[in-house]
C-alpha cells in the first residue's frame, strides 16, 4: 500500500483528506489512481499531457523524484508520495 500525502491546498479537491492509500508500483501509477478518484486533484499535480507541473514537486523517501527517475520512480509497499506545490504566502 502507498500513501499519497496531499498539501492543505489540494485537500478540498480530494474529499478533504490529507492521505490517500493506493496500490501502485510507480509514481505514475499512484497519480493515475488518484486521478480516477479525484480528477481535479490530479490535474493540479500533472498537466493533461501527464507531465509534472513546474510549480509542483513530488518527494519519495524524502527525495525529489525529478533528481531520480521522475514519474517512473518505483514505489514499494509502505512508501509515501509527498506532494509539495509552490505557495507564495508571507
Amino acid at each position: 500500500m502507498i500513501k499519497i500525502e496531499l498539501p492543505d491546498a489540494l485537500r478540498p479537491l480530494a474529499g478533504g483528506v490529507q492521505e490517500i492509500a493506493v496500490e501502485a508500483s510507480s509514481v505514475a501509477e499512484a497519480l493515475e489512481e488518484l486521478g480516477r478518484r479525484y480528477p481535479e486533484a490530479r490535474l493540479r499535480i500533472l498537466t493533461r499531457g501527464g507531465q509534472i507541473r513546474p510549480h509542483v514537486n513530488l518527494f519519495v523517501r524524502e527525495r525529489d523524484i525529478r533528481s531520480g527517475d521522475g514519474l517512473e520512480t518505483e514505489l514499494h509497499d509502505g512508501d509515501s508520495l509527498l506532494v509539495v506545490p509552490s505557495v507564495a504566502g508571507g
Partner: protein
Amino acid sequence: MVIDKRLAELRDRISLLSPAEARARLAAGELMIDVREPGELAQGMPAGARALSRNELELQIDELAPPEVPVMLICASGPRSLLAADALQRMGYSRVTVIEGGVERWKREGLPCTRPEHVDADTAERYARQMNLPEFGIEAQAKLADSRVLLVGAGGLGSPAALYLAAAGVGTLGLVDDDRVERSNLHRQVLHRDDGIGTPKTDSARATLEALNPKVEVRTHQVRLTSENVESIFSDYRIIVDGSDNFPTRYLVNDACIKLGLPNVYGAVQRFEGRVSVFAAGGRPCYRCLFSEPPEAGMAPSCSEAGVLGVVPGVIGLLQALEVIKLATGVGDPLIGRLLLFDARSTRMRELSLGPDPGCRYCADGRDFPGYVDYAEFCSGATSEDLETHD
C-alpha cells in the same frame, strides 16, 4: 550525585581563597586565571585576571606559567575552577588555589571587574544569555553586530524574523515593503499594532524595532521591489530574507540573489502549512531549482484567498531568523539543500532533500546570468490551457 561527591573531595584537597585574599595576591603579582567561556567574560572578569577557558586550560597553561608558579583559578561560582585545579595538579602545578564563590562572589563583594575592550556595557548585559553559550560567545555576537540583513516584506514572515533579529543584535536590519498596516494584518504581523493602522508598514516596523533594541540600525525602503531598484537596494546587504507574499517578488528576489551572490533565506506559508529553506549564495539549488515556474492562474490561491493561521508565519519567520543567525555567525548548519515543511495541524516538521536542477537557467554550472524578466507577466500570464501547449 557523583559530581557532588567529587567536588567535596576536591574542596578538602585544594586550597581555597576568599575573593579579598585573592585580590591581595593578584595585587602582589600572583597569576589569576578566569576559566569561564569567552561569552561569560563579556559581563566582566576580575580586573587583572587572565582569560583561559576551561577547555583550553591544559593546552595553553604553559604559555602563562611554569608548574612551580602559584596559580589562582576562578570561574562563575566555583565548581569548574575546582575541576580545573585538579587537572593542573595532575600536570605538576602544585601551587594551585581556587577562589571560593567565583566571580559571582567577587562581584557581590564589590571587587573591581573589567570587560573585554570591544564589548560595551550595554552589549555585555543585553546579549549576556546568548554570549554565555560557549559555541556562540563574543565572537559570534560581534559577527552578528557586523551583519547586514534585508527583510523583503514586513508582514507575517518579516515581523517575527525582524523582531528576533533585532533582539539578537543584527547590526543593520533593512525592510522593504510598500504596504500600509491593515486591521486584517494584525493577527500575524506582530511588528504592527492597532494604533498603526493606515501607516506605512516600514514606519510601524521601525518604531517597534527601535523601541526593542536601539543598538540596531533600522533601514527602511518604502518601495515595491522591481527589476530596476532591486540591485541598488540589495547591494547594501549581505543576507536576504524572502518574506514576500507574491510570486513575482519571490522570483525577482531569487534572481537578484543569484546575480549578486547573496544567500536567500526562503520562507512561505499558507493555511496551516509553512516551509523554509536556505538558498546559498550562487544557488545550486536556488528557488528556481525547486519551482522552475510559478503556478498558472487559478492553481494557487493567495494568502488573502486561502487564509493562514497566524502562528504559522510566526513559526516559519522565526526559523528564517534562526537561519540568518547561523549564516551571519557561522554557528550551526544552515538549511542549505534542505527544505523543512511545517504542518500546524499535526505540529509536525519534516525535512526533504533538495538538489540543484542541472538545467536551471539561473544557477546551473557555467550559466551566465540571463537577465531579469517581466515578473508580473511571468507570474500571471499562463493559463492552464497555455500550459497544455508546452507539454
